[in-house]
């Protein structure tokens, strides 16, 4: 996983963000980091909002050409909406289609990465909470079997009132990356801040190797970042290193 977090592979990373501080950079940095480390593992990008052109452009600026990987089928970009029932139909939308698609791609493979960008949009467009919970649990189990990293993005609507879907995701995630805007509003020098929390599956298990190496960040000690066109710069809160 991308620096400075250096999370281990095979985890379930939940990334939450808000409209004023989108976490696109965290997803794409994770993708780029994985592509640089592993050449032949399968990567599945389940997109609801992100377009292939933008993803390709951002990766190209970081020195990664996605086209050959797409041709060689090591990278699968799946537009989720195009696989789901159309508007105004009475057909109950089911995420089973997406799960079967992902399971088919990962069949017989070990290692890799699944990115779900994002799960909130599915909830807002009519998928039930139960469906989404089951879908995430099924993906998590699939990832555990195939030692695949799972990254799920969730948009927070009200920062101080976690919704039910977020509560359920927090219960099954390994780590929770909390991307937030500055409480003082937008700034040209600081784009936002990131906190990193451990999920319940890692709490109280300090002996596990993956939890020993990761440095968690509470909200009080959150790392601040500044976005550039194709990169992100991290710096500690209160220091002028990132600003000057």
């Amino acid at each position, binding site marked *: 996983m991308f620096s400075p977090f250096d999370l281990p592979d095979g985890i379930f990373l939940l990334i939450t963000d808000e409209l004023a501080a989108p976490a696109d950079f965290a997803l794409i940095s994770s993708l780029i980091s994985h592509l640089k480390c592993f050449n032949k593992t399968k990567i599945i990008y389940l997109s609801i909002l992100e377009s292939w052109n933008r993803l390709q452009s951002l990766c190209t600026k970081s020195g990664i050409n996605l086209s050959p990987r797409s041709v060689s089928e090591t990278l699968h970009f799946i537009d989720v909406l195009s696989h789901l029932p159309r508007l105004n139909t009475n057909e109950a939308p089911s995420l089973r289609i997406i799960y079967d698609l992902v399971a088919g791609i990962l069949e017989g493979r070990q290692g890799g990465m699944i990115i779900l960008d994002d799960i909130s*949009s599915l909830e807002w467009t009519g998928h039930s909470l139960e469906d989404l919970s089951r879908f995430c649990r099924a993906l998590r189990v699939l990832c555990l079997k195939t030692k695949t990293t799972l990254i799920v993005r969730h948009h927070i609507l009200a920062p101080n009132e976690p919704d039910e879907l977020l509560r359920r995701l927090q219960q099954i995630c390994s780590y929770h990356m909390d991307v937030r805007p500055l409480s003082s*509003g937008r700034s040209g020098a600081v784009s936002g801040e990131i906190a990193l929390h451990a999920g319940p599956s890692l709490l109280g298990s300090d002996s596990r190797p993956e939890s020993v190496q990761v440095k968690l960040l509470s909200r009080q000690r959150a790392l601040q970042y500044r976005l550039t066109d194709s990169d992100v710069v991290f710096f500690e809160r209160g220091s002028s290193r990132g600003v000057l």
Partner: protein
Amino acid sequence: MSSFKRKSAKHSGTLPGTRPSPGSVATLLTSTGIPSLDDVLGGGLPLSCSLLVAAPDPHSSYGELVQKYFIVQGLVSSQDVLLIDDNPLDFVKGCMWTTSDLNCKVFGEEEEERSDERIKIAWRYESMKQFQTTVGQSIANTENFCRAFDLTSRIPDSVIQRALYSKQLEVCDVTSFQSTALVLSEVVSRIEQILASRSKTTPLRICLPALGSPGWGDSSSEDLLHFLRRTRMLVRRHTNACLSISLPPHLSVEDWSGRGWIEKIGWSTDALITLAAFTANPSMTSLFPSHHGLVHIHTLPAPFTFLPPSDKFSLLRGLSAAADSSGSGENNLAFKCTRKRFIIETMHLDLEGGISERRTNPSSTAREFTGTKLIETSGERAGVPKAGLANVEVELEEEKVRAEQSTNPTAPVSGKGSTQGQAMTETGVPSRRKVNKPKKKVGFQTDRPDVYDF
């Protein structure tokens, strides 16, 4: 002859009414028809992006006004326009049109604002450039990218007929669909069909002035969000199209369909801006008499970058490194609609803010000050009623003035020695108070009760 050639975008200028983004030549921008809104968006609306304007005030229709600018800008710059509405032809007929005089006050300040130029406020502010709260546009840009429109003139019928005949303007009446329950999916199919059948030489503007209004049938929030996502993805796939949508007032409020509606639609589009007019709130009208509403920026387009280009290039927002307030927060923005045009500008206190650096330099011409009274020497203000002017009072300690006179007789304060001396004798006895630190007090008094001392 040098073998070096300037690197330039290959497609620059090939598409009418577009220009490359200042940050990336791969991104083509098109104008919304409002220069200040273009600035907020980072130079214009990028092709393949969608803009959503929410106008929650039920007594005004600023969202539709933005869409009218969007349509006529497309027609003027020879781009194709697809208008989807419940009464599209009437909507087009209500659009504004270009002004004939390019140098008229559409580009500058209004007449009443210009009258302020005659006011001499104080010698140290004399060399400052005019205070700017919004962005204008150059004549060169006007011809190619953004034209000047006059709200007092209407689009000629001949222009509409010609555009309809040549298929430059295509209208889609949502009430003509057979089933109101399937309007949204029918519209998506129609847009998909049109985009697939078009050539890539002319940009297409897709305009939905009142998505979700009664003419669109009874749509749920899920349907609307699904619609926004699908249209956004469609436009993303077609790099020569852009989309502009306005929501009716009842869909523009925060709590429609439960918590976080504005955030949900913000995630579903590339750019979301709320124009919150004051008409329903008399207290806001009295607080900000020179503005008609606040501008809230929720999200901005970033078609190929992490950082929206607006953060780097918008003068109005003031987040860029070149801005005077670099490193500090974002400017507050408000809008006003004058008789001739719609403007977004910075909203701030009287003495601070604006989009350009204001620095005071010592003036070459001297004025006389004594006590708390300003002595007029030029007589420029003669005949100008005092009530309408910004009066400035400058207080200086007498000892300091005298000390400067004695040590440096050619100093600006005593530059007109005889006049100064005369003024001093005219204005009474100088103060004998002894203070450790010389105090300087400047008070700005306008006809309004707000007074700032520093």
